[in-house]
């Protein structure tokens, strides 16, 4: 795709790039001081270097204790998901979920399926149950152009790290074995949600992100609330503008 000069990996290019980045960093650090001092001067206080007491943080108190029962969560999640144009399904275990996905894949005549590299997803057995399709496992082979592979895939299969019923939202965190592209580039997306990962409020996913701190965060944490959509043309709702247009949430358990 890129010509030789633009390959950041080239040896000469790499040292030049490092020098350029170092120079930018030096300039940035110098500028940072005047920038922050300027803000402090405008605010008419000395530069604040220690954490101020934060009088109000996060959601109101009454919200923090708000919770639904497991059955309510499933019901509300499914209702929310469908209200934005998503599809829902319920499976008692991974095997049943695997059969469900295989059936849909056959119906859609899927040629390429991409799934995250996780044991639960391996146990779906898609490789054998959808023999007509090529099933790729994310990042399993470093010679594959994985983003391009996901872009040509008909179906992506991921497993939710968490889900939240109140807004009908699924949380997926990136990792070497869990590509951001898998939940984004294929035409159809299946998201498996183990029932015990289904909570109620957004805060249940957000607050742990503070608690774990910067080091524990992956590069991308994505909150997905349904299929890609737009109303930019005459307010007419269109599904599947850039991301997947057909999105199944399969609750397991």
């Amino acid at each position: 795709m890129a010509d030789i000069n633009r390959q950041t990996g080239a040896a000469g290019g790499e040292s030049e790039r490092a020098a350029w980045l170092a120079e930018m960093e030096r300039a940035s650090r110098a500028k940072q001081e005047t920038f922050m001092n300027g803000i402090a001067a405008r605010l008419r206080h000395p530069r604040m270097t220690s954490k101020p007491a934060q009088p109000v943080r996060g959601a109101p108190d009454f919200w923090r204790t708000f919770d639904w029962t497991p059955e309510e969560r499933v019901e509300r999640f499914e209702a929310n998901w469908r209200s934005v144009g998503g599809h829902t399904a319920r499976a008692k275990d991974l095997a049943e979920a695997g059969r469900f996905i295989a059936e849909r894949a056959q119906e859609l005549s899927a040629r390429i399926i991409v799934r995250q590299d996780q044991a639960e997803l391996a146990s779906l057995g898609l490789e054998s149950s959808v023999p007509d399709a090529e099933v790729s496992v994310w990042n399993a082979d470093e010679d594959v152009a994985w983003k391009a592979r996901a872009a040509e895939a008909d179906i992506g299969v991921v497993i939710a790290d968490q889900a939240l019923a109140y807004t009908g939202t699924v949380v997926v965190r990136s990792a070497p074995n869990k590509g951001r592209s898998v939940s984004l580039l294929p035409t159809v997306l299946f998201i498996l949600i183990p029932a015990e990962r289904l909570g109620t409020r957004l805060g249940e996913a957000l607050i742990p992100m503070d608690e774990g701190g910067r080091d524990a965060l992956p590069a991308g944490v994505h909150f997905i609330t349904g299929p890609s959509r737009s109303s930019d043309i005459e307010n007419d709702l269109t599904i599947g503008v850039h991301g997947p247009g057909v999105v199944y949430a399969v609750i397991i358990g």
Partner: protein
Amino acid sequence: MSAQKGRATVKERAELALNDEFLVKAVKFTTERLRNGKKNASAEHGNWDEWRERGRQIRLHTIAHLDYYLNLFVENARANGVHVHFADKGEDAVAIAMDIAQRKAAKTVVKSKSMVSEELHLNHALEQIGVEAIETDLGEYIIQLAGEMPSHIVIPAIHKNRYQIADLLSEVAGEKLEADTTVLAGFVRKKLREKFLEADIGMTGCNFAIAETGSMVLFENEGNARMVTTVPKTQITLMGMERIIPSFEDLEVMATLLPRSATGQKLTMYMSAITGPKRTADADGPEEMHIIIVDNGRSLQLGDPEFQELLNCIRCGACLNACPVYRHIGGHAYGSTYSGPIGAVLTPALNKNVAEWDDIANASSLCGACYEACPVKIPLHEMLIYLRRRKVETGNGKAVETAGMKGFAALTGSSAAMKAALAIGKIGQRLVVRGGEIRTKLGPLKGWNSYRVTPSLPRRSFRDRWEKLNREVDADRPQMAPDMKRRMEQIVKERGKGGGGHGGH
């Protein structure tokens, strides 16, 4: 900015807009849809005012300690492997972005929606060095093809109908596309897919930046912001210096307020928290990530008691949808990047050129619907009054208006003068009154009487009746009952707390 504004005044641009029947209908329909969506979503969620107050408090606190929180964000972002840059002015930000683009020998930049980028007119600058900058939000893509500015902060192509859009896209396709939303959106999906995969740089805005972790958060519905932050090797994020909130815990409040206020959604289809470039072993995400922190007039608001709260804005567009003026004239009549009530205040505030932009401050009936709609309670209608006052204070008022106001003060300041004027008026009006109404469109009544009639002065005014009324009241004045007095005192006390709404500012 002045190039955008052209020579026309807001009044002339509004006149053009009001005569564009499609535009008026489209804007009304869209704002109505979004306004109702917000009403329903906020009512369904419940305790809306408590959430708004929460949002306001978080934003107030962060801005009041911005040097601390912004610095914390910068340190954390750097530790995450992000290259952070600072830009005092728009030109500085443009220069940094161009430097990165040139370093990467970039041919194509794919962009997701960023109001800051609109503010900087960055696309134009990139094109001048031969870099193709492509807007990938469907509405933004359409107006980019048309060579226009967004007319609504959330629905940028609100002013275009699907036939116009089909014509624009047909030109790109090199064949005639049917004016059908699904067909058109399908074409854009396919076309931009190619662009995402071949682009050298992805460029985004930033809805919120989390100080404690150095993460940046994007809200969107289409998935294009995810594309831009997942596929290209280099990511550049343009971020207004005030986008900060302390924590993800605080993000729960913003995520509750923003989508509901913007479109009535419980949450946008995608909310992404990006913390640095891809990890070494990851197979997607940018290898190199830059964040450019932009001032461009924002710091002028810091420490200004009348305007600091402007920095609390979360760019939801609810004030546009609530504004009766915006609904009639649309966004382009405001003549700048930001339109509607927030634009009317933000544009002169960012540019510090009250004199040049004051006609926008006049394009408001000060009805307060913007304040009522604002999820972080920015008193925009009061800021419009402050702008008008500053304009007069700097000697940029209109001479005729100043003279008129002086005359009004002289009349109303003296009982005798008022009485004399009314007497003259009663005689003078005989020339123009027909059936108790004045319909002439001559002189100062032209604007008013083009849409209305003016009532005549009554034969007997309240002043004429006052003496008799006063005598009657004096003759029979009862003592106030103690419980009534208590109620009065209670009401006055409530007012002190800003009771009725937002007089406390």
